[in-house]
């Protein structure tokens, strides 16, 4: 999915991610976790990497990951975001203490709490975020 940085695109991405999570058979709460994480990640790209500028490129790719590549048994969903904004400040990737009651800084915390893997990388002058959500073992059989 090729997007331009614009908050109006978020509702479309949420709908797309919701469908992807359903296809992989995530339960409702875990589908919401995937949707929430991608939404927060995109919002961060728009606000921080592109500093609120509209019309900048963001690529979102989404694929099933498999516990057994030969049998193609799905075990989760991998989402990658690629942007050409300013490099992610690694000092800010720790999130903030939640006992501070103040606005802001929650998006990264939501992502880390909701996904099994959250990895940031700078590659070829771009920011790459990789997130993975795995199906619970009880959901893996009979596909």
């Amino acid at each position, binding site marked *: 999915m090729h997007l331009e940085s614009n*908050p109006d695109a978020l509702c479309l991405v949420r709908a797309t991610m919701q469908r992807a999570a359903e296809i992989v058979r995530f339960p409702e709460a875990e589908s919401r976790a995937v949707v929430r994480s991608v*939404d927060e990640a995109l*919002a961060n790209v728009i606000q921080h990497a592109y500093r609120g500028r509209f019309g900048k490129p963001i690529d979102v790719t989404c694929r099933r990951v498999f516990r057994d590549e030969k049998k193609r048994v799905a075990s989760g969903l991998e989402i990658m975001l690629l942007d050409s904004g300013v490099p992610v400040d690694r000092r800010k990737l720790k999130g903030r203490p939640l006992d501070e009651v103040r*606005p802001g800084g929650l998006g990264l915390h939501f992502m880390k709490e*909701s996904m099994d893997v959250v990895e940031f990388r700078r590659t070829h002058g771009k920011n790459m975020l990789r997130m993975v959500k795995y199906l619970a073992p009880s959901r893996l059989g009979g596909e």
Partner: protein
Amino acid sequence: MQIAARNANDGVILDISGDIDLANSPAMRKVLLGEIKEKHTRKVYLNLKNVRYIDSSGIASLVEGLKASRDNGARMILYGLSPSVREVMELSRLQKIFEIYDNEEQALSS
């Protein structure tokens, strides 16, 4: 997202519907802070029954509203949270700092 205001016996009810995200949380923030700081409404009830989704920017706006209400001697009361909104409140560990009720009847009698 849509917001409609109606009078309650001792304040204002804001009926919010749709998704609260980066695209529209500034609009919610403006309405909320307008009630508290400009109109000096003593009790602001947020009816979230028809809110399907809220992101961290929406939560940040609610925190700002709460702080403004405390600074102005007002109360901000939330009710009707969907499972999705409740999850986000729990994730942010803010459910205990907000006044939250299950439904309008309970909120109005609080």
